């Protein structure tokens, strides 16, 4: 029983970070309709930015105040320069989705290679809040608990932002029907770029949180992209609360499988994906 609790709580802790990564992807796909295959790379970039600042004496939790705006600006500019151009040239939304996805894969190669050129491919790590702490009898590092709490807090704050501000309302309107929202006076190109930027910022912050508790390396992005894909599908494409819950489900599942057979974690995500495709393609919260 104690063993089971250990695995379960460990899964919830990593699940918080999965939630944050996936919410970013869900926002980018659900509203801006860009299936961002470079999402994991943005996360990796955020993690290395935190690492670099930490080496220069900044508290890792404070670095998030730098990482988030930097990633937001990168995402915003990327949308305005590249994806908006693809969107205006595409014949129909389907063509835009597939072209945008391929362009995102292009960014996957670009960002990863720039990172490898700068930071090499050796894993990096630093210690921050390394003491352990007990939850329900199980011992966990403080940094993992802090990271999970931050992830949940950021997710909740963003949800509130979507539901209670004017910009949030514009984003939700654009998610429902881009064209009609535009006709109702929403500045569509600005709102979509905003969503893409927010998604990138979430990925960056998730990267900061990951660097606090795990070792980071320049090729780690792809693994997290695959996780985000599965979580986003699990929660329902474009559903923010769905991604939030899905992250925890996948975190627990991953930690159970990792306890039993570490080599089969990715395969287990895939089994989930296949079952979803067969039984409920719209996900747990999809409409």
């Amino acid at each position: 029983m104690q063993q089971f609790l250990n695995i379960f709580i460990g899964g919830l802790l990593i699940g918080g970070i999965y939630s944050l990564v996936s919410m970013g992807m869900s926002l980018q796909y659900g509203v801006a309709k860009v299936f961002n295959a470079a999402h994991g790379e943005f996360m990796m970039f955020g993690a290395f930015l935190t690492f670099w600042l930490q080496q220069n004496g900044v508290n890792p939790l404070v670095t998030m105040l730098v990482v988030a705006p930097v990633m937001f600006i990168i995402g915003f500019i990327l949308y305005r320069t590249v994806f908006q151009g693809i969107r205006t040239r595409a014949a129909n939304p389907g063509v835009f989705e597939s072209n945008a996805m391929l362009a995102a894969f292009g960014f996957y190669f670009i960002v990863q290679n720039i990172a490898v050129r700068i930071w090499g491919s050796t894993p990096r790590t630093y210690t921050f809040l390394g003491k352990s702490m007990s939850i329900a009898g199980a011992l966990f590092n403080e940094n993992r608990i802090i990271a999970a709490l931050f992830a949940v807090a950021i997710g909740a704050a963003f949800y509130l932002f979507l539901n209670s501000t004017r910009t949030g309302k514009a984003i939700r309107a654009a998610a429902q029907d881009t064209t009609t929202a535009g006709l109702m006076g929403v500045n569509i190109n600005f709102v979509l770029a905003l969503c893409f930027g927010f998604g990138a910022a979430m990925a960056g912050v998730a990267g900061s949180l990951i660097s606090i508790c795990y070792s980071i390396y320049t090729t780690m992005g792809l693994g997290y992209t695959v996780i985000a894909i599965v979580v986003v599908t699990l929660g329902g494409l474009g559903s923010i609360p769905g991604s939030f819950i899905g992250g925890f489900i996948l975190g627990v599942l991953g930690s159970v499988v990792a306890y039993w057979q570490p080599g089969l974690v990715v395969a287990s995500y895939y089994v989930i994906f296949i079952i979803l495709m067969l039984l409920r393609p719209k996900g747990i919260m999809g409409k």
Partner: protein
Amino acid sequence: MNLKEINWKKYSLTGGIPLLIVIFLGIWPYIGPTYYVTLFTYFLLYVTMAIAWTIFSGTTGYISLASAAFYGLGIYAAALFGEKMPLIFVIFIGGAASFVLAFIVGSITLRLRGIYFAMFTFGLVVLFKEVLLYWEITVKNIRGYFVVIETNNTIYYYLFGICVVTVIIAYLLKRSKYGLALQGIGENEEAAAHTGINVTMVKILTFALSSFFMGACGVVMATKMTYIDPQIAFNPLMSFNPALMSIFGGIGNLYGPAVGAVLFTYIQEKLMTGSLKNYYMLIFGAILVATILFLPNGLMGLIQNVWKRIKGVKRAPTTG
């Protein structure tokens, strides 16, 4: 048929040029220098991969990123059966295995929207790599296999054969009623379904057919590698190369992917051996983004547009 009714000029162009190319490629290993024979082997490989990719993804608009999975399956077929039987049988085994895999993947995902298909196929390559690594390390306690090697000329001629078959099948498919159905699916799937096309079945079968050729290519190329392991066999780049080459060349017709594949293979070869070797992937990504942003109809689309302008064809003003 009356001989005067045949349009000789048209037939000599549509039949003559491909015939000349086939004869030239057929005698090339005897007249060309070794380096260029190897380069042409890669031309043939990528032309086959790009055209096989276009058969399905180009016409229907469903972007498949699983080419590497089928290619890798072919490589593994060569490793497992290469010693036991002649290469020609192994090619059919590799192709058939890819066909079956594509059929299963298609039946799971092709009922749904295109984005699910793209996501699923992309993850498939990662899945195969992980599971095979796990299988080899944990269960079998070995890593990788050795493959029976063939001479360069044998590899060349097998690929040449596969390439010719692929092009002929792609051409016939495009002209058949199935080609029309595929085009209908690409333009408006709902309308295609309403005209009585069994869209799911057409999509699944075409996807499986295109995968057959990818698997066959994998079998032949494996005999060039001597040693393989999951990391080598399931290289995600093999998924992106056919897609990028086809879009780069233009997916509107069969010439586009072929031209794109030849040009891009040449660029790749120059970059990989030159001083920019370490920046290859970076340049690859940049070309991918630039192609999609500035050449959505590919090189062939661009040439057609320029040609129209030179000939002064008047078009109604369109927006978009």
